[in-house]
């Protein structure tokens, strides 16, 4: 009797790229819900625009390169890039800006380097930085959380008005930007600290919450929860998130202990801006991160350190994107110097 050939190992693998990416998307669901709850449906529109653009760009390049389109679209990596990008941009963003970011991320940061697995830079962060530099005004128009705060918070757009804005870039008649938007907590803190207002006094404002800022701290917590899910599912390993968080906390705690009036406590850093998103979802992008366990510790810690440095002394309120891109550049060197000891070889 004749038999068909097969190659070892003959056990069915439990994982696939699609599954890994799918788990990442799943882990972002609670944070998306929280985000929508606090900041309105804008993020959902941005996600839709970014995903559609990313998939279209990916398909177009794959077709141009003569690659199989379907399996590469089904790997969901482009969707993950799009969703992460959508998490970084303000809820009220016209569609062409979102589309520009997503297109840059896929076309330039990913496919020009050879597609999935070959991009040295995190595509979502590359796309975001392009937007931050090209559309500085639009990229800093953040909405305050939709909370009942006895008239301290400005009015908000409803779902329809947000959609109209996303599609046309025009606000409803009679509504101005000043009435709608405010600075992000990180931005506000930064401005106030430059005016030599002590941290305690700044954080007494209604914008701020227990750890970070109202709304923001909750989304950060839900993102952290999603991250724990990824750890539990072994989609990511503990080294990068732990190192990023430590990298932020350690210098933040030191600065705070030395000058509590000029520096917010480390918990504020953890629950503000994109720290959590970075630690669990952005820095952990395997393609652009260091791969050895020790290398991941170094990589993550340096990202955390850079986030703190850029936030405290840099020109931008949040430094996640720059920190990640800078460390992406250092990955080959980190990997080179942190090779694990092979069994039976001396240290």
């Amino acid at each position: 009797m004749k038999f068909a050939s097969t190659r070892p190992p003959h056990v069915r693998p439990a994982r696939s790229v699609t599954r890994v990416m799918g788990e990442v998307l799943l882990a972002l669901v609670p944070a998306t819900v929280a985000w929508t709850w606090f900041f309105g449906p804008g993020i959902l529109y941005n996600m839709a625009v970014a995903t559609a653009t990313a998939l279209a760009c990916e398909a177009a390049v794959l077709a141009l390169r003569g690659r199989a389109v379907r399996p590469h679209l089904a790997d969901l990596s482009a969707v993950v890039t799009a969703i992460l990008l959508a998490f970084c941009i303000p809820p009220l963003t016209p569609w062409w800006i979102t589309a520009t970011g997503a297109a840059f991320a896929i076309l330039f940061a990913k496919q020009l380097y050879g597609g999935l697995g070959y991009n040295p830079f995190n595509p979502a962060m590359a796309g975001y930085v392009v937007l931050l530099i090209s559309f500085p005004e639009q990229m800093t128009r953040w909405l305050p959380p939709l909370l009942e705060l006895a008239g301290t918070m400005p009015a908000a757009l409803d779902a329809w008005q947000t959609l109209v804005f996303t599609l046309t870039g025009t606000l409803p008649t009679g509504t101005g930007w000043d009435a709608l938007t405010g600075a992000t907590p990180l931005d506000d803190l930064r401005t106030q600290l430059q005016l030599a207002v002590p941290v305690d006094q700044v954080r007494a404002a209604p914008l701020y919450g227990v750890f970070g800022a109202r709304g923001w701290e909750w989304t950060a917590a839900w993102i952290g929860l999603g991250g724990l899910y990824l750890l539990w599912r072994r989609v990511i390993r503990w080294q990068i998130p732990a190192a990023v968080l430590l990298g932020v906390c350690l210098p933040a705690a030191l600065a705070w202990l030395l000058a509590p009036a000029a520096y917010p406590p480390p918990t504020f850093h953890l629950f503000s801006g994109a720290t959590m998103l970075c630690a669990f979802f952005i820095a952990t992008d395997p393609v652009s991160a260091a791969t050895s366990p020790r290398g991941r510790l170094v990589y993550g810690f340096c990202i955390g350190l850079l986030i703190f440095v850029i936030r405290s002394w840099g020109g931008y309120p949040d430094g996640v994107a720059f920190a990640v891109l800078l460390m992406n550049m250092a990955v080959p060197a980190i990997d080179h110097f942190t090779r694990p000891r092979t069994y039976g070889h001396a240290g």
Partner: protein
Amino acid sequence: MAAACRAGGGGTAVNPARLWHFHGGLKLDARTARAAAAPIGAVPLPPRLVLPLSQHVGQPAEPAVSPGERVLKGQPIARPNGYVGAKVHASSSGTVVEIAPHPVPHPSGLSAPCIVIETDGLDEPWTGYEPITDFTALTGPELRARVRAAGVVGLGGAAFPTAVKLGAGSGLKRLILNGAECEPYICCDELLLRERAAEVLTGAQVLLQALDIARCVVAIEDDKPAAQAALEAAIRAAGDARIEVVAVPAIYPEGGERQLIKVLTGEEVPARGVPPDIGYLCQNVGTAAAVARAVTRGEPLISRIVTVTGDGVAAPRNLEVRLGTPVAALVEACGGYTGQAAHLLMGGAMMGFPLADDSLPVIKATNCIVAASREEVRPRAPVMPCIRCGECAEVCPAQLLPQQLYWHARSDDLEPLDDYHLFDCIECGCCDLACPSQIPLTQYFRYAKTELWARQRDRARSDIARERFEARRERLDAEQQARKKRLEEKARAADEARGDEQARKAMIDAALERVQARRGSDRDDSPGSGA
């Protein structure tokens, strides 16, 4: 037990209360429930036995019989060729009908020389090897000689000649018997331990005697309590305090000797070394049983236990199989194929290789036959690009960086691979299984190793050629120099000779002149005198 360990001799003690970990590995579904439930069965004598001359690591054996010759069960039919080699014995009585290349079970799927015996159904035994009652009276070299004569090789899968391993030297700390059968489907060692624990124990005693080692530890995975209990009972019955059983966690590839030594002792075998370098010797439990039979009963290695399993087999079980029996006969003895049999594997689910058809013979290294259904094996999924997730490195028991190795191997940039310790890869397949992109990593590494070996061979060959060429040139140069020198000498000699001639000529000339001068004066004188 710990105290006994310390009393046992120098070095790190194997302490069952303290086990170490090896890096990575995978917890795999054992898939042995069905086959391990039935006792070891027998296979009817097949009409033809095909015995490859190479069933072991080392040079193929040389035939010691010729076609037409009648052989008896257990009679040596091929002798080892070189130190690293093993005898082959007839596994039943009959007539040698052919010595010719036949397809053999090997990943390459190629043919190799085999001795084919047509059995006569009599199973008439050969009595060349004497049984002995007391092996403790024999010396190490005598025991080794008996093991070598019986053609025993490692039965765990590697098939390294056991007698060669027994020449490891003296002063070893521990004998480690490997009953950690970690690969899915395989349970032949478990059944051996359950049914023939006394034989394994005797084997351990013989090996301790042969190597002059004070203590032995038998490692059995903790998901095989019946096997542990059976061996422990046998040890108690024999009252041998030198041998202890240790339950080790069932993690693939713990059965690899380097991994097992790490788990038991916390020590690592040096990369280019072997376990005796750090004081340990590892033998499979099946090998120990074969050693026991060879030494005490004078039985050569002509049969072994094989697990026959998979959804493609009606009644999976373990069988005592004569070497040379076609795989089809094994499946027949297990109730034949079910309709689901789609693939045939030799070995386990991780490192086993596919067989093209079931006429191939069972050899010394065959521990398992799997007739797998389509659902049991890995489907052919499209290979996606590496996303550098590093899961391969997380599971690698050799602590390698498979993703880096792959990166270089794929681009055929093989030189840096040695630097990344490619040759420490044990090809266990863990990285393959962990890879979300379905990259056949182990295949790449096998290819890269073969390619590097080939290049090394080529380099060695070209080195030899260059050396030869240089030697020839030197020789020719030397010859030319010598010839030149000879010619010069000749020329000089000739010159000298010519110089002599000129001198002689000058002398002659001078003499002639003198003569003429004298004649002239004579002439001057003579007329006067004559006048």
